[in-house]
């Protein structure tokens, strides 16, 4: 494509682009403002995948979401992976590029999962340097997403919000705020998700994720296999009450339902945004 990236509309709600929906999306052109592409599922350079992605891009803005930069890892940056990201940026002109505050591989081991690391000043220096390198190489700002975790390190010197704020200050990166992850962490670790949101550099949030978790009774798993829970909708409303307008995404990665279900969740998010913006305007 090699054109200008189309921005994501403020206060809009996109959905994740999933392969089983693409044919319908291309045939029916549903009224979705944008789609998020999970980059790691679309790296093929030949065949159906790039053809379909180019066709979707003709009609919709895209956001490129990555899981393999391993920003918190200590292996050297995976340059072939970043080359692929760069190629995808060149080909599809995504409005935003994002990855997670985690590590995904170490030594020769690839985990295909988003693993946490301790929030220390040493980690901050290290991750800041890697984000700088990534942004320099890609020639663009990236968004960094908070992840859901099932453990916390004794040695952490700051909390996640403080760590992310420092990253923004040092690197100029943006934030992808995953409200479901914040809620899962609140439930699993017993700290306040509202306080987490309060302490985040909210003015630098350029995208918000909403997703469903799996309830294991004693703890929650960030499974992205369900509708957004009432508790997460409430937390979303809390985030919105301060007048924020970053584009929002409905994420659904496992047991993926029909496109209508995703669009239905997006419509619900859109209604909440609308209601919230009316309230904010009234009391401004």
């Amino acid at each position, binding site marked *: 494509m090699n054109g200008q990236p189309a921005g994501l509309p403020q206060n809009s709600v996109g959905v994740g682009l999933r392969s089983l929906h693409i044919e319908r999306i291309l045939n029916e052109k549903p009224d979705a403002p944008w789609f998020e592409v999970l980059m*790691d*599922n679309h*790296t*093929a*350079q*030949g*065949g*159906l*995948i790039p*053809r379909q992605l180019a066709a979707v891009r003709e009609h919709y803005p895209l956001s490129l979401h990555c899981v*393999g930069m391993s920003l918190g*890892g*200590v*292996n*050297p940056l*995976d340059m072939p*992976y970043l080359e692929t990201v760069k190629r995808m940026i060149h080909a599809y002109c995504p409005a935003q590029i994002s990855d997670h505050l985690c*590590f995904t*591989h*170490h*030594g*020769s*081991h*690839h*985990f*295909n*999962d988003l*693993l946490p*690391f*301790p929030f*220390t000043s*040493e*980690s901050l220096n*290290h991750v800041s340097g890697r984000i700088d390198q990534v942004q320099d190489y890609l020639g663009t700002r990236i968004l960094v997403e908070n992840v859901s975790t*099932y*453990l*916390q*390190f*004794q*040695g952490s010197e700051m909390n996640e919000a403080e760590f992310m704020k420092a990253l923004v200050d040092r690197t100029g990166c943006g934030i992808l705020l995953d409200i479901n992850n914040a809620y899962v962490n609140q*439930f*699993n*670790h*017993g700290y306040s998700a509202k306080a987490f949101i309060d302490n985040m550099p909210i003015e630098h949030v350029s995208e918000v994720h909403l997703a469903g978790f799996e309830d294991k009774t*004693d*703890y929650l*798993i960030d499974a992205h296999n369900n509708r957004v829970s009432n508790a997460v909708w409430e937390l979303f409303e809390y985030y919105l009450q301060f007048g924020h307008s970053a584009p929002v995404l409905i994420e659904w990665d*496992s047991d993926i339902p029909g496109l209508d279900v995703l669009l239905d969740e997006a419509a619900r998010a859109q209604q909440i945004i609308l209601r919230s913006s009316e309230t904010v305007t009234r009391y401004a």
Partner: protein
Amino acid sequence: MMSTVLAQHLSEFTRALTANPPDGDDGFAPRLMNSSRISPRLALEIYRNNTRGTRIKALEMIYPACKRILGNDTFQAVARGYVIEDTVGAADLNHYAETFSQYLGVLLDADRLADDYAYLPDLASLEFKFHAAYYADSDSVFDFELFEHKVKSGEQVYLQLSASLGMLASRYPLYKIWLHNHPGLDTAKNKSNSEHEVEAITAIQYLLIHRDEYIPAVSPVSDHEYRVLEAIDRKHSLQAVINRIDCDINVVFPKLIANKYIVGIKHNE
């Protein structure tokens, strides 16, 4: 790799996740806080399940016919065994588990899979090649003018195979087994390969896996065609292929080019 406290944490975390049996968390667990709901030991178990679960899902996607034949429970058990043994994984799960076929062979040799499943390693190999063909790069169009020029000028010519081409020789009626067990097989190309073609191959069955445009297909081929492609794949020159294989080149080569198994000439041999 940097040598720091962070690196040490990540190394211990990695050891705790990949140890088999999972006894590697003794050094790591003390570094973790006891949160209100999840003990360090449970946390590591959750991460082990997550990482393994993701890979098992990848195996299910790549090997649907093997799963259908083994049944869900047996396949899950086999897949779990594979991902536990394979602690390295892959950065890109679209290219994960090429060695699953060999793992099935090991299970057969150890009598952990019944002899009835002796064909499964070959079937798994076929499924991996089919999956890889879907993700393969597109090919360029055969340049006949360049080919003619090189041949006429007496240059050594090395042919280029399609990036999506996979080859498989099996003593089992693999094509038939695959057709019956590959879900969602509805492309006209696959269905057009009638079964009598398979029956005609009485000894070794030669199969090609190839993606012409968007969807891969599996096609039985003659031993001559297979051996020509195999020789090209082993980097023999065109002349060497012709010398080695006793076949009518005026029939075999045009067919292999027309089917886009051979897509051009290599420049740097």
